[in-house]
């Protein structure tokens, strides 16, 4: 699979992905139409839900934050031609890192320090959950797709066990830890704005969003401006060429998976340090899987990933509005749209290439050759 070298870049990177996205939305619209609702009204309701109501943009950007983290995680692995399906599990275990750090230190150490340690905890625990499949791929030849799938399930079982039996708040029925101490956590943007004298509607948007943007810039720098980035991209293009160039393939794979897992782990800071203020069951809510769609749509580039995350953030937030406005379509509609986006932007990404090539040659090719 590769981009066509007949058509110029603005077509293959700009127009074709948009056409794929358009196709995905058309098919989603057809489903809504068959259910007996008006697809255009559904889009209108979702846009209003995502951007118009007070605090709506805050919610949209809060979801966006999660998708930037998981999207970057998947994209980094893709650059080394590794398919990390394990973002969900890595984010979940990253939450364990946050939870353990906070529960152990928050009574003794000042909140600011605990928060920084907790962020490190999320990265390290997420990284560990990425390193193991990376090691198994690099040294034992297990297929990374299968191992990361298995690790998602192992993470889920592990977290249920720990939350139900070990770190649950005593005397509590629902499987969650006690609240972290009050000084611990990342400030929500609307509270931050209040200090500055600005009035903002309440939303869960917090400093993690700024973190996500910073990490995106770091991602770009790492992949396109460092030696390691060069090595991982070479590995992605051709393993044999990478070996000839003297690149240590196994250690590159393991480090890539460590960073990828760490990026996914950062979802926990947005969810736990920014919003819930405790560790709870199932907080990852499929964000890891959505990261795959985001990376595919964003063509593994941080800017593309930002745009794709914004789209998915809007879909998630706008989707909740569907529940209130329609009797027969609900937020699960978003799952359907997500599946179609993965299908058209991912699996069928090159379906339109021959068509566009033919059109291009017909209308522009004659000019160029003349």
């Amino acid at each position, binding site marked *: *699979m590769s981009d066509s070298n007949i058509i110029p870049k603005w077509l293959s990177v700009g127009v074709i992905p948009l056409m794929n996205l358009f196709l995905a939305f058309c098919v989603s619209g057809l*489903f809504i139409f068959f*259910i*007996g609702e008006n697809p255009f009204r559904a889009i209108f309701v979702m846009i209003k839900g995502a951007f118009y109501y007070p605090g709506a943009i805050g919610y949209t950007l809060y979801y966006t934050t999660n998708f930037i983290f998981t999207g970057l995680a998947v994209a980094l692995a893709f650059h080394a031609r590794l*398919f990390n*399906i394990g973002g969900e599990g890595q984010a979940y275990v990253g939450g364990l890192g946050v939870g353990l750090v906070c529960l152990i230190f928050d009574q003794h150490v000042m909140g600011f320090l605990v928060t920084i340690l907790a962020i490190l905890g999320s990265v390290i625990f997420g990284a560990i959950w990425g390193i193991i499949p990376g090691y*198994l791929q690099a040294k*034992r*030849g*297990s*297929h990374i*797709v*299968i*191992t990361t*799938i*298995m*690790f998602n*399930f*192992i993470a889920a*079982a*592990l977290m*249920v*066990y720990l939350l139900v*039996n070990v770190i649950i708040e005593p005397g509590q029925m629902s499987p969650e830890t006690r609240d972290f101490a009050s000084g611990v956590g990342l400030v929500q943007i609307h509270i931050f704005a209040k200090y500055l004298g600005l009035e903002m509607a309440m939303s869960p948007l917090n400093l993690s969003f700024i973190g996500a943007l910073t990490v995106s810039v770091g991602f770009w720098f790492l992949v396109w401006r460092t030696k390691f980035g060069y090595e991982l991209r070479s590995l992605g293009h051709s393993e044999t060429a990478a070996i000839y160039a003297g690149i240590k393939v196994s250690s590159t794979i393991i480090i890539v998976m460590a960073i990828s897992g760490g990026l996914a782990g950062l979802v926990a800071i947005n969810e736990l340090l920014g919003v819930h203020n405790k560790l709870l069951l199932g907080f990852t809510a499929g964000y890891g*899987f959505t990261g*795959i769609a985001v990376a*595919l749509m964003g063509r593994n580039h941080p800017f593309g990933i930002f745009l794709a995350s914004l789209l998915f953030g809007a879909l998630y937030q706008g989707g909740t509005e569907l529940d209130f406005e329609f*009797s*027969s*379509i*609900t937020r*699960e*509609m*978003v*799952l*359907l*749209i*997500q*599946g*179609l986006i*993965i*299908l058209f932007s*991912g*699996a*069928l*990404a*090159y*379906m339109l290439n021959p068509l566009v090539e033919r059109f291009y040659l017909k209308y522009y090719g004659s000019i160029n050759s003349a």
Partner: protein
Amino acid sequence: MLESFQIIISLLDSTIRIATPLIFCAMAGIFSERSGIIDIGLEGKMLLSAFVAATATFLTGSPILGLFGAILASCSASLIHGFACITNKGDQVISGLAINILASGLTITLGIALFSRGGQTPPLASEQRFMPIDFPFLDQLSFVPVLGELFVEVISGHNVLVYLSVLAVFFTYYVIFKTRFGLRLRAVGEKPEAVDTAGISVIKMRYQSILIAGMLCGLAGAYLSIAHGAGFGREMSAGKGYIALAAMIFGKWNPIPTLFACLLFGFLEALGVRLEGVELIWIGEVPVQVMQALPYVLTVVLLAGFIGKARAPGAIGVPYSKES
């Protein structure tokens, strides 16, 4: 002694019930992957067909039509998979994942739109389901110690799809290893160029294989909603497709070992449920999550080559183009 015998009998009985959908799906996986197509979408195909089976049965009143609907739905999903990764040479893992997410969203959305029950289908009456079949001569056999009881409680008294799943294993074994079609199918998964040179269409072989896989997944889905269960519940497949995938790898892409892997994973789940809240000597209470995680842990360990070596078909995951 007698009591522990009873426990074993009931454990074996639930093992078979749990293993049935795994067996169908794992056989589906073997057909698909032996022909070189990775099938992450087992889960989604099973979920979709479970929904269609329950819906079609509820609307028509006939479980046979429900079964056909399930197979049709699952095969359509297979065709989407084929269109994406055989015809358009797209990534097989991404396509499978798309099918899984699509199935999740589609079943809930359609379920709510059709029945307004939060994604569930209305419950089915027993004449609308495949009910347990009792074998003849049960009364006479039940007097035979041990073997008689084993026959009455474990072998007899399942619905028709359970017996069909055993047939599916022999069918898979026979087709893949004893027919010309099977020889070609395996060749397509190992060295598609060679098959192409021999004048056989790689594309056609792969489409045929994934359609058989679709049929088998359809049976798994129908088992969940109109045989074992009495209706569809959201996310009803609950990861069984992935366990089947694990079982297929554990069985090294061979039907008979895969059957035993499915039974082993079914047994672990049955045991986990059984051991909940039970204090064992030496060990103490075994958390149910350990049993839930064990199939995945075992598969990871196997794949890493610590217990034997699992080798995937040679050309798996690679789209076939004549030119390259």
